[in-house]
């Protein structure tokens, strides 16, 4: 067994251990605030992993990923509100539409390199925000309240306890991790990293760049959309400002960058640091704390970008994978 196989075996074991630990984590916790913090952290770890598939592995930095979060949330919620479709089904519809959206955006944009692509994603994200803000059928600026129709697993609605949401988020994050893990070991994963490292060399080896980027976009968009649907059910209310705004795009991308872009554990580590920091500064510092959370993330990202681009995971010796 060589180093690659050994590493993957260790990663798989690590994944199972972390999963078990996180599954057991909420059981002794009674305080709602902490439960919420953990749920949001896990959810964003999953969302960031979804982002990582396109941004980290494939190297196409998307700064407007909230679009897919929003699309997934709106599709799933509209289906539930108007069609009675339970969110456990609706999330897949949401994911599918989001994935399709990602393909539509990718089509003209993937031939743009690095920063041009990033700019395009910012503008497209803003277009999405503007669109939903002015679209009366989906509630425009007022948004949509997710109607509580009784406790239900299928409808992902729980009032008495947050625990089921914890497991929903955990399953979501675990699925995104597994998908990243599986693809990392297969042809696509290699193709993506080759394209990211040196697209000319990748082409000379027969890697079809455009189709592989489209595949990454579709998977990333789909997973983000599914996460959006779960988020909508958890928060119980969606509107453009809470689900399509640029600030959410930042919250989705930054954990992966902080933790280690293009790595398996990066988004998890990054989310575990970034999300609590954000929530805690906001609640403890209150009014005067406004902005401190942004200063902390912004500062951390600049430090990571300049001093340790391989991210926090590289501090744990997770290899030279940059």
């Amino acid at each position, binding site marked *: 067994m*060589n180093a690659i*196989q050994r590493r993957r075996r260790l990663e798989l074991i690590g994944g199972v251990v972390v999963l078990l630990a996180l599954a057991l984590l909420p059981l002794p916790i009674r305080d709602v605030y902490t439960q919420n913090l953990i749920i949001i952290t896990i959810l964003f770890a999953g969302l960031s992993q979804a982002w990582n598939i396109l941004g980290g592995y494939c190297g196409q930095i998307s700064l407007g990923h909230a679009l897919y979060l929003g699309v997934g949330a709106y599709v799933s919620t509209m289906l539930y509100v108007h069609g009675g479709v339970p969110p456990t089904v609706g999330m897949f519809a949401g994911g599918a539409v989001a994935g399709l959206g990602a393909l539509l955006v990718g089509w003209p944009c993937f031939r743009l390199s690095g920063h041009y692509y990033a700019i395009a994603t910012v503008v497209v994200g803003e277009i999405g925000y503007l669109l939903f803000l002015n679209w009366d059928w989906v509630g425009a600026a007022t948004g949509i309240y997710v109607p509580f129709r009784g406790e239900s697993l299928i409808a992902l609605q729980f009032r008495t306890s947050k625990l089921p949401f914890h497991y929903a988020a955990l399953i979501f994050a675990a699925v995104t991790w597994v998908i990243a893990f599986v693809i990392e070991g297969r042809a696509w994963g*290699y193709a993506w*990293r080759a394209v990211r490292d*040196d697209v*000319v*060399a990748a082409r*000379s080896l027969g890697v079809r760049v455009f189709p592989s980027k489209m595949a990454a976009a579709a998977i990333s968009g789909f997973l983000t959309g599914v996460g959006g649907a779960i988020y909508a059910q958890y928060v119980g209310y969606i509107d453009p400002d809470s689900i399509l705004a640029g600030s959410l795009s930042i919250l989705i991308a930054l954990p992966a960058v902080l933790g280690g872009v293009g790595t398996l554990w990066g988004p998890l580590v990054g989310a575990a640091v970034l999300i609590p920091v954000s929530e805690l500064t906001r609640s403890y510092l209150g009014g005067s704390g406004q902005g401190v959370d942004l200063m902390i993330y912004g500062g951390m990202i600049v430090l990571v970008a300049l001093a340790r681009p391989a991210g926090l995971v590289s501090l744990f010796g997770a290899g*030279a*994978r940059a």
Partner: protein
Amino acid sequence: MAFLEVDGVSKTFGGVAANVDISFTVERGQILGLIGPNGAGKTSLFNAIAGEVRPDRGQIRLEGKRISGLGPVACSRAGVARTFQVVRSFDSMSVLENVMVGAFARTSSPAEAMGRAMSVLEFCGLAARADAAAHQLTPPEKRRLEIARALATEPKLLLLDEMLTGLTPTEAAAGVALVRAVRERAITVVMVEHVMEVVLPLVDRAVVLNLGRVLMTGSPAEVVRHPDVIRAYLGDRYAAPA
């Protein structure tokens, strides 16, 4: 029908005629040297065969099928592999992973790709460095990695871009041995070089380019004696009377 046919290839870059009406053939299993002084048009022709550049006129055919103007990906799938003069390794990956990218061109099974990559690494003498990070290799090792990666795509034609330039005599000898071993595997090789004394003992035939045109083609012995070739490289003073 020869294995590789370069037929009347011409290419101009912004007013400069890099290649003018280049024609020659390569038989299967041969090692062909593409030589000539700097600026002769070797790189441009090389890139045309590799699919990076589309000729303005003429065609390049592999086993009778056109490969010119199709792009590097199609060329690769047709069985052409190439190395880069300035090594382009995938720095975020290990040596083995680099070669696996090439191996995935022929199989989608990770286990198979890994196996093939390992055997290619053994062939190229890099097996011991399989798990090292690609960016940590020494320059000669990096060149071997380029070749290994290209070989992993199981090409019919291997294009080497100045593989032997700037090596110590020991390294060059090892490089020559590797190219011979590649030919043993029934892979045709076209090498661009401008260091004559290294390449002429190795190749079966040579095509000499000068100022964008074919100066002559022939066996190494013929080439090295030809006054036009000597004049092209060293100037008129050294050309002995024919």
